[in-house]
């Protein structure tokens, strides 16, 4: 029974994928991950992206810069598109810029950055400096980081979008902070994306934010799918239940990602990693079967008992 429902779910995503996404997958991609459409636009985004907090903040160390660009190469080879960063993340933007240049600026890239300054006037120059660090002509998505000075920044982002200087705009939070305020913003502001923390243990977003995002056609980016690595580390001492094998999840990281991306309101989870094997493993979570509601409950219950 479960299998049947999951198979149907898989079939519906794959069908959307076949129709709209095939043309958008990068030429060098060797696999095609499951994808979902972005709001009402019809543009497809693979269910797993790449974060850059800590992992890509490597300064000027050449060895680590090259290791980061290897991670990016593996990400694009696995069909990845969205990379997320922020001016708050030290040298991460510059590391991404280095990797993109080395990889010949892959067409598949979906660039997501943030504006993070309490001064309304600094927003524009900061976004321009970030763009320079990435070396892209413009960002696909700019988000207001952690709701900082969000009224002024959202006004700026709307003007940028109207002028064709950014394709999508959004707002972020994490660790479950300021959900009530975020809900008001989602209900009242014309945003394309919202980014929030959601994982098998931090599930507050399921109550109001994820249903609201579906209702309003707002795409959802999920940060901290592994609670900054802590969840994978903690669960690794427990056995992976064999009943998830049928979804294709072969590790705890894939179990956790499958839980996140199988929520129908989620557009993309953005785990960060400094390791090529991990990025491949994470991207592979966006393949096979996605758990249905019953299996998702079983997964959450199982982790809850550990």
């Amino acid at each position, binding site marked *: 029974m479960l299998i049947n429902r999951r198979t149907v779910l898989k079939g519906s995503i794959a069908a959307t994928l076949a129709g709209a996404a095939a043309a958008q997958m990068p030429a060098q991609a060797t696999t095609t991950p499951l994808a979902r459409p972005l709001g009402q636009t019809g543009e497809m985004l693979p269910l797993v992206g790449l974060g850059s907090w800590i*992992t890509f903040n*490597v*300064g000027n*160390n050449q060895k680590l810069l090259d290791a980061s660009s290897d991670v990016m190469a593996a990400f694009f080879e696995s069909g990845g598109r969205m990379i997320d960063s922020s001016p708050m993340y*030290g040298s991460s933007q510059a590391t991404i810029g280095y990797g993109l240049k080395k990889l010949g600026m892959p067409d598949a890239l979906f660039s997501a950055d943030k504006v993070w300054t309490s001064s309304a006037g600094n927003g524009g120059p900061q976004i321009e400096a970030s763009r320079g660090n990435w070396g892209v002509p413009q960002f696909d998505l700019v988000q207001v980081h952690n709701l900082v000075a969000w009224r002024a920044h959202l006004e700026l982002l709307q003007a940028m979008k109207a002028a064709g200087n950014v394709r999508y705009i959004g707002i972020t939070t994490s*660790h479950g902070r300021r959900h009530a305020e975020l809900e008001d913003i989602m209900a009242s502001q014309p945003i394309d994306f919202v980014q929030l923390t959601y994982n098998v243990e931090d599930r507050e977003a399921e109550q109001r934010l994820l249903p609201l995002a579906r209702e309003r056609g707002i795409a959802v980016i999920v940060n901290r799918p592994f609670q900054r690595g802590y969840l994978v580390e903690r669960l690794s001492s427990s056995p992976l239940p064999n009943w998830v094998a049928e979804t294709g999840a072969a590790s705890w990281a894939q179990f956790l990602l499958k839980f996140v991306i199988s929520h129908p309101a989620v557009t993309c989870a953005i785990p960060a990693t400094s390791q090529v094997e991990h990025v491949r493993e994470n991207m592979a979570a966006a393949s096979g079967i996605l758990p249905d509601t019953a299996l998702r409950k079983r997964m959450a219950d199982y982790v809850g008992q550990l």
Partner: protein
Amino acid sequence: MAEWSSYSLHDLLLFSLQAYIGLFELLNTTLWPAHLVTLALGLAAATLVLKGHRARHRLVWTLLSILWLWTGWHFFHVQYAAINWAAEYVAVVFWLQGLLFGLFAMVPKCPQISYVGTVTDRMAAAVYLFALIGYPIASLALGRSSESVEFLGISADSGVVATLAILVLSRARFIWLAWVVPLAWCALTGLTLWLLGSPEFFIAPLAAVLAVAAAASYITGPDSLPDK
């Protein structure tokens, strides 16, 4: 309030241990062979103090001033700030400390630095020697690679510990002002390494505790000398 309580100390870290160690690898490759110069200057300062050279007071404060100004500029502003924007603020604090030592070197009643061989003096000498040579050895023993160990004048920690040893030998009571930043740095670097999961986290705080213990015996014990 509720929002702040959702942050943990780990959330304040912007970089991984790998990136932090990568910073020292980069410093060692780009600055070599400056390590030999800083070591020679460190030994020269020690010789001036041990021999009781008349010019030692102003010369040693001048060297310390240069060390702190240079560390603030190169280590914090040029290198560390690439992975930690807060390093820009620490750079300013190091510059202020460098200016304070510059002031010590210039004022007519220059704070004295003397080694008279008491137990406290020997403790200070041991801390100083540790900053010069022991620091890299201890790091190696605790698992750092030879490319990434920290040296006096190349990164911050060993220079700060050497400074504490000199402050012990300076004896002047009003000099407590000069202790604040080195002690705060020892605590901060220890905390950073601890949060990053490095086994070396205790080295600088331990050296700071030894220096404070040594200084306390000067201030309260029979070694206490009047300010000159």
